[in-house]
């Protein structure tokens, strides 16, 4: 039971930190847009290079996308954490289930970002 409690605390913390970080990035990016009036943004399809490296790196739109990316990665970290917990619990069924979910996410990111 204590393991379940610690898992709940871990999940709760991951989600909180992820949401706060991305909200801060998005708020900062939006404020920057409003103050500078710089609405330049690459049109059309995005690639991973732009999302991570970005050009201009501290452009308002790039900070916004970093915020969106942080938000998207947060639930993925939650899955990674739960795989770890289920492994230590020797819960084979749930280790398998959560690993497949992670696999699907990674495949979708790979296909999505190409």
């Amino acid at each position, binding site marked *: 039971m204590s393991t379940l409690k610690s898992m709940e605390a871990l999940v709760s913390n991951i989600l909180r930190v992820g949401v706060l970080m991305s909200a801060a990035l998005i708020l900062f990016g939006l404020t920057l847009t409003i103050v500078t009036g710089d609405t330049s943004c690459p049109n059309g399809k995005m690639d991973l290079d732009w999302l991570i490296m970005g050009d201009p790196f501290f452009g308002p739109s790039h900070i916004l996308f970093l915020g969106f990316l942080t938000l*998207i990665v*947060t639930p993925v970290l939650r899955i990674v954490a739960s795989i770890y917990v289920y492994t230590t619990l020797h819960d084979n069924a749930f280790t398998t289930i959560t690993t497949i979910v992670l696999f699907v996410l990674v495949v979708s990111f790979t296909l999505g970002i190409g």
Partner: protein
Amino acid sequence: MYLPLYVIYAFIISLGSGGLGAMLGMGGGTIMVPLLIFLLKVPIHIASGASIIAVVATSSAAAVSYVKEEMTNMRLGMFLELATTIGAVTGAFLIAVMSEAALRIIFGLSLLYAASTMFLQSRKMERSWAQRPNDAIADKLHLGGNYFDSARNESITYGVSNTPITFIISYVAGIVSGLLGIGGGGIKVPAMNAVGGVPMKVAVATSNFMIGVTAAASALVYIRNGYCDAFLTAPVVLGTLAGAFIGARLIRHVRGVDLKKIFVIVLLVLGLRMILSGVGV
């Protein structure tokens, strides 16, 4: 200085839908997308793109307090995520080949579906929810659970029945989620509640918990395909987060039945408008 009105309107719309969404486990996208389309004249692909990212935010934010209050059934959630994530990826790829009109009609139909299942449920008394034992799969995976209902001041133990059907409906909910940029809670909550026999509040909290992973699976496909307008998505995400923060704190003090009645009407009106706009009326 650059602050167009649509940024402020988008924030207000998402504040309201995020709050309601968190209380109903619907992520908020269900109301937000139609409002963005009708009030701000945003194309459906872009509205869905903003929504799906905001939906990740709502889910994660609301889940923080749900998980702490132990209303979330994490085992059930992670099991059903298997179905919803595969569905979400399927849906996100389908959106690229769908027209604006087709998407509006499908969106409208899913709103009407959610309205009808909620209406059927709200006619029953909340107390008529009957405790069911785990079926064979739920028993093997220990999917049942218990939670403390603060509105009734009692501890409630429940099992999960009809697990295979609940799983299949969750897959469909995943497709709808990826396709329309919504959380799909309107499908998952009734599935867990009516089919699986899980108490309403647990179904809401668990659906909300799952939605983040489901939406994350399709959100990057949206961004990659250019369906993410950063200057619309930013106020939408911030508004939804603020709304979800308030909504997750209100749910403890509201009875499930009252919530559903309000929502049935909202869903019905938006669903009909969406279908009519799709067929060009």
